[in-house]
Protein backbone atom coordinates (compact mmCIF):
# COMPACT_ATOMS: atom_id res chain seq x y z
CA UNK A 1 0.00 0.00 0.00
CA UNK A 2 1.29 3.44 -0.88
CA UNK A 3 1.12 6.39 1.44
CA UNK A 4 -1.52 8.04 -0.80
CA UNK A 5 -3.78 4.98 -0.54
CA UNK A 6 -3.46 4.95 3.21
CA UNK A 7 -4.59 8.54 3.39
CA UNK A 8 -7.71 7.95 1.25
CA UNK A 9 -8.97 4.76 2.85
CA UNK A 10 -10.20 6.37 6.05
CA UNK A 11 -9.80 5.11 9.58
CA UNK A 12 -7.61 4.33 11.33
CA UNK A 13 -5.36 6.77 9.47
CA UNK A 14 -2.92 7.57 12.28
CA UNK A 15 -2.13 3.90 12.83
CA UNK A 16 -1.80 3.28 9.10
CA UNK A 17 0.56 6.24 8.77
CA UNK A 18 2.65 4.97 11.65
CA UNK A 19 2.90 1.53 10.12
CA UNK A 20 3.84 3.01 6.77
CA UNK A 21 6.46 5.22 8.33
CA UNK A 22 7.97 2.15 10.01
CA UNK A 23 7.88 0.18 6.78
CA UNK A 24 9.85 2.79 4.82
CA UNK A 25 13.61 3.03 4.65
CA UNK A 26 15.48 4.14 7.73
CA UNK A 27 19.06 5.29 8.07
CA UNK A 28 21.35 4.30 10.90
CA UNK A 29 23.46 7.38 11.62
CA UNK A 30 26.47 7.22 13.92
CA UNK A 31 27.30 10.47 15.69
CA UNK A 32 30.73 11.69 16.72
CA UNK A 33 31.92 11.66 20.29
CA UNK A 34 35.22 13.03 21.55
CA UNK A 35 36.10 9.93 23.56
CA UNK A 36 36.13 6.77 21.48
CA UNK A 37 39.40 6.04 19.70
CA UNK A 38 39.48 5.97 15.90
CA UNK A 39 40.82 2.41 15.98
CA UNK A 40 37.94 1.40 18.25
CA UNK A 41 35.31 2.91 15.96
CA UNK A 42 36.88 1.11 12.97
CA UNK A 43 36.79 -2.17 14.91
CA UNK A 44 33.13 -1.68 15.85
CA UNK A 45 32.13 -0.92 12.25
CA UNK A 46 33.94 -4.03 11.03
CA UNK A 47 32.38 -6.16 13.76
CA UNK A 48 28.81 -4.86 13.57
CA UNK A 49 28.40 -4.29 9.83
CA UNK A 50 31.04 -6.63 8.44
CA UNK A 51 32.77 -3.73 6.67
CA UNK A 52 36.23 -4.24 5.24
CA UNK A 53 39.03 -2.10 6.66
CA UNK A 54 38.76 0.57 3.96
CA UNK A 55 34.99 1.01 4.29
CA UNK A 56 35.16 1.03 8.07
CA UNK A 57 37.87 3.69 8.01
CA UNK A 58 35.91 5.82 5.54
CA UNK A 59 32.85 5.81 7.79
CA UNK A 60 34.99 6.46 10.87
CA UNK A 61 36.59 9.49 9.18
CA UNK A 62 33.16 10.77 8.17
CA UNK A 63 32.03 10.56 11.77
CA UNK A 64 35.21 12.24 12.96
CA UNK A 65 35.30 15.03 10.38
CA UNK A 66 31.62 15.65 9.66
CA UNK A 67 30.16 14.63 13.00
CA UNK A 68 28.03 11.83 11.53
CA UNK A 69 27.98 9.00 9.05
CA UNK A 70 25.13 7.00 7.56
CA UNK A 71 26.32 3.44 8.06
CA UNK A 72 23.27 1.47 6.99
CA UNK A 73 19.79 1.95 5.59
CA UNK A 74 16.81 -0.35 5.31
CA UNK A 75 13.81 -1.54 7.26
CA UNK A 76 13.11 -0.04 10.65
CA UNK A 77 13.27 -3.30 12.57
CA UNK A 78 16.75 -4.11 11.35
CA UNK A 79 17.84 -0.48 11.79
CA UNK A 80 16.75 -0.71 15.44
CA UNK A 81 18.74 -3.91 15.86
CA UNK A 82 21.85 -2.17 14.52
CA UNK A 83 21.26 0.85 16.76
CA UNK A 84 20.96 -1.50 19.74
CA UNK A 85 24.22 -3.24 18.88
CA UNK A 86 26.03 0.07 18.37
CA UNK A 87 24.72 1.18 21.75
CA UNK A 88 26.17 -2.01 23.28
CA UNK A 89 29.51 -0.84 21.89
CA UNK A 90 28.89 2.66 23.32
CA UNK A 91 28.63 4.46 20.03
CA UNK A 92 25.78 6.95 19.74
CA UNK A 93 23.46 6.13 16.87
CA UNK A 94 20.17 7.66 15.77
CA UNK A 95 17.65 6.50 13.20
CA UNK A 96 16.40 8.82 10.50
CA UNK A 97 13.57 8.17 8.11
CA UNK A 98 14.59 8.41 4.46
CA UNK A 99 11.46 10.48 3.90
CA UNK A 100 12.95 13.25 5.98
CA UNK A 101 15.64 13.78 3.30
Amino acid sequence: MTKAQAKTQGTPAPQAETELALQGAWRVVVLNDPVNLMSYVVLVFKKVFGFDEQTARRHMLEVHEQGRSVVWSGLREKAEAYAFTLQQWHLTAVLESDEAH
Partner: protein
Amino acid sequence: MKRIEVKLALPVVAPLLDVIKGMADSLRRNLAAPLGLTDLDAEFGSAWTDELMAAQNEDVQTLLALFNDEFFADGVIAFDEGNAEQIVRATAAVRLRLREYYLKPLGDETLESGNVELEQLDEPLRKAFMCYLFLATIQELIIQHLDSSILES
Protein backbone atom coordinates in the same frame (compact mmCIF):
# COMPACT_ATOMS: atom_id res chain seq x y z
CA MET B 1 44.61 -19.46 22.40
CA LYS B 2 46.39 -16.16 21.89
CA ARG B 3 47.13 -14.44 25.18
CA ILE B 4 48.73 -11.12 25.99
CA GLU B 5 50.29 -10.44 29.34
CA VAL B 6 51.15 -6.89 30.27
CA LYS B 7 53.29 -5.97 33.22
CA LEU B 8 52.18 -2.69 34.71
CA ALA B 9 53.95 -0.40 37.14
CA LEU B 10 51.99 -1.09 40.33
CA PRO B 11 52.80 2.24 42.01
CA VAL B 12 51.44 4.08 38.95
CA VAL B 13 48.35 1.98 38.19
CA ALA B 14 47.14 0.95 41.66
CA PRO B 15 46.19 4.51 42.66
CA LEU B 16 44.05 4.79 39.53
CA LEU B 17 41.88 1.82 40.45
CA ASP B 18 39.75 3.74 42.93
CA VAL B 19 38.75 6.13 40.16
CA ILE B 20 38.00 3.28 37.77
CA LYS B 21 35.94 1.49 40.44
CA GLY B 22 34.03 4.71 41.12
CA MET B 23 33.14 4.98 37.45
CA ALA B 24 32.20 1.30 37.41
CA ASP B 25 29.77 1.94 40.28
CA SER B 26 28.27 4.84 38.38
CA LEU B 27 27.83 2.62 35.33
CA ARG B 28 25.63 0.26 37.35
CA ARG B 29 22.89 2.87 37.09
CA ASN B 30 23.66 4.71 33.84
CA LEU B 31 24.35 3.85 30.25
CA ALA B 32 27.78 5.03 29.19
CA ALA B 33 26.50 6.58 25.95
CA PRO B 34 23.15 8.37 25.80
CA LEU B 35 20.35 6.33 24.31
CA GLY B 36 20.16 7.57 20.73
CA LEU B 37 16.65 6.33 20.02
CA THR B 38 14.06 8.50 21.69
CA ASP B 39 10.98 7.36 19.78
CA LEU B 40 10.76 3.82 21.15
CA ASP B 41 7.56 2.97 22.99
CA ALA B 42 8.01 3.09 26.76
CA GLU B 43 7.85 -0.64 27.45
CA PHE B 44 10.22 -1.53 24.60
CA GLY B 45 12.57 1.29 25.52
CA SER B 46 12.69 0.13 29.12
CA ALA B 47 13.40 -3.49 28.12
CA TRP B 48 16.13 -2.23 25.77
CA THR B 49 17.75 -0.17 28.50
CA ASP B 50 17.63 -3.06 30.99
CA GLU B 51 19.32 -5.38 28.52
CA LEU B 52 21.99 -2.79 27.67
CA MET B 53 22.64 -2.11 31.35
CA ALA B 54 23.03 -5.83 32.10
CA ALA B 55 25.52 -6.28 29.25
CA GLN B 56 27.40 -3.14 30.25
CA ASN B 57 27.70 -4.30 33.87
CA GLU B 58 28.95 -7.69 32.80
CA ASP B 59 31.62 -6.05 30.63
CA VAL B 60 32.71 -3.73 33.42
CA GLN B 61 32.98 -6.61 35.90
CA THR B 62 35.27 -8.39 33.43
CA LEU B 63 37.46 -5.27 33.29
CA LEU B 64 37.63 -5.03 37.09
CA ALA B 65 38.50 -8.72 37.32
CA LEU B 66 41.82 -7.93 35.59
CA PHE B 67 43.00 -6.29 38.76
CA ASN B 68 43.10 -9.48 40.81
CA ASP B 69 45.59 -10.99 43.26
CA GLU B 70 48.04 -11.69 40.44
CA PHE B 71 47.99 -8.03 39.49
CA PHE B 72 48.65 -6.92 43.07
CA ALA B 73 51.40 -9.54 43.43
CA ASP B 74 53.40 -8.83 40.29
CA GLY B 75 51.59 -6.14 38.31
CA VAL B 76 50.54 -8.46 35.49
CA ILE B 77 47.19 -8.34 33.69
CA ALA B 78 46.25 -10.72 30.88
CA PHE B 79 43.97 -10.55 27.85
CA ASP B 80 42.84 -13.40 25.63
CA GLU B 81 40.03 -14.38 23.30
CA GLY B 82 37.79 -14.96 26.29
CA ASN B 83 37.87 -11.45 27.70
CA ALA B 84 39.14 -9.16 24.91
CA GLU B 85 35.76 -8.11 23.53
CA GLN B 86 34.23 -7.37 26.92
CA ILE B 87 37.27 -5.43 28.09
CA VAL B 88 37.49 -3.36 24.93
CA ARG B 89 33.82 -2.37 25.41
CA ALA B 90 34.22 -1.79 29.14
CA THR B 91 37.18 0.53 28.63
CA ALA B 92 35.06 2.56 26.21
CA ALA B 93 32.25 2.73 28.79
CA VAL B 94 34.52 3.84 31.62
CA ARG B 95 36.26 6.44 29.41
CA LEU B 96 32.89 7.91 28.44
CA ARG B 97 31.94 8.05 32.12
CA LEU B 98 35.25 9.70 33.01
CA ARG B 99 34.45 12.44 30.55
CA GLU B 100 31.01 12.95 32.09
CA TYR B 101 32.29 13.04 35.66
CA TYR B 102 35.69 14.66 35.50
CA LEU B 103 37.01 15.63 32.10
CA LYS B 104 34.42 17.99 30.65
CA PRO B 105 36.34 21.06 31.93
CA LEU B 106 39.16 20.13 29.55
CA GLY B 107 36.89 20.62 26.54
CA ASP B 108 36.17 18.13 23.82
CA GLU B 109 38.84 19.39 21.41
CA THR B 110 41.54 18.96 24.02
CA LEU B 111 40.18 15.56 24.94
CA GLU B 112 40.18 14.45 21.32
CA SER B 113 43.70 15.71 20.65
CA GLY B 114 45.07 14.44 23.97
CA ASN B 115 47.25 17.53 24.28
CA VAL B 116 47.06 18.08 28.00
CA GLU B 117 49.72 19.38 30.37
CA LEU B 118 49.33 16.93 33.24
CA GLU B 119 51.32 19.10 35.66
CA GLN B 120 48.84 21.93 35.25
CA LEU B 121 45.82 19.84 36.30
CA ASP B 122 44.63 19.59 39.89
CA GLU B 123 44.91 16.16 41.53
CA PRO B 124 41.42 14.69 40.86
CA LEU B 125 41.44 15.86 37.26
CA ARG B 126 45.01 14.65 36.70
CA LYS B 127 44.17 11.23 38.13
CA ALA B 128 41.03 10.98 36.01
CA PHE B 129 42.96 11.91 32.87
CA MET B 130 45.64 9.34 33.66
CA CYS B 131 42.88 6.70 33.97
CA TYR B 132 41.52 7.89 30.64
CA LEU B 133 44.93 7.42 29.00
CA PHE B 134 45.58 4.12 30.75
CA LEU B 135 42.29 2.64 29.54
CA ALA B 136 42.99 3.90 26.01
CA THR B 137 46.32 2.08 26.12
CA ILE B 138 44.61 -1.16 27.14
CA GLN B 139 42.11 -0.70 24.34
CA GLU B 140 44.82 -0.07 21.76
CA LEU B 141 46.77 -3.13 22.88
CA ILE B 142 43.75 -5.37 22.53
CA ILE B 143 42.75 -3.92 19.16
CA GLN B 144 46.31 -4.28 17.90
CA HIS B 145 46.78 -7.88 19.03
CA LEU B 146 43.35 -9.47 19.42
CA ASP B 147 41.16 -7.73 16.85
CA SER B 148 40.81 -10.92 14.80
CA SER B 149 39.51 -12.77 17.87
CA ILE B 150 36.92 -10.06 18.39
CA LEU B 151 35.88 -9.98 14.75
CA GLU B 152 35.54 -13.75 14.57
CA SER B 153 33.72 -14.22 17.88
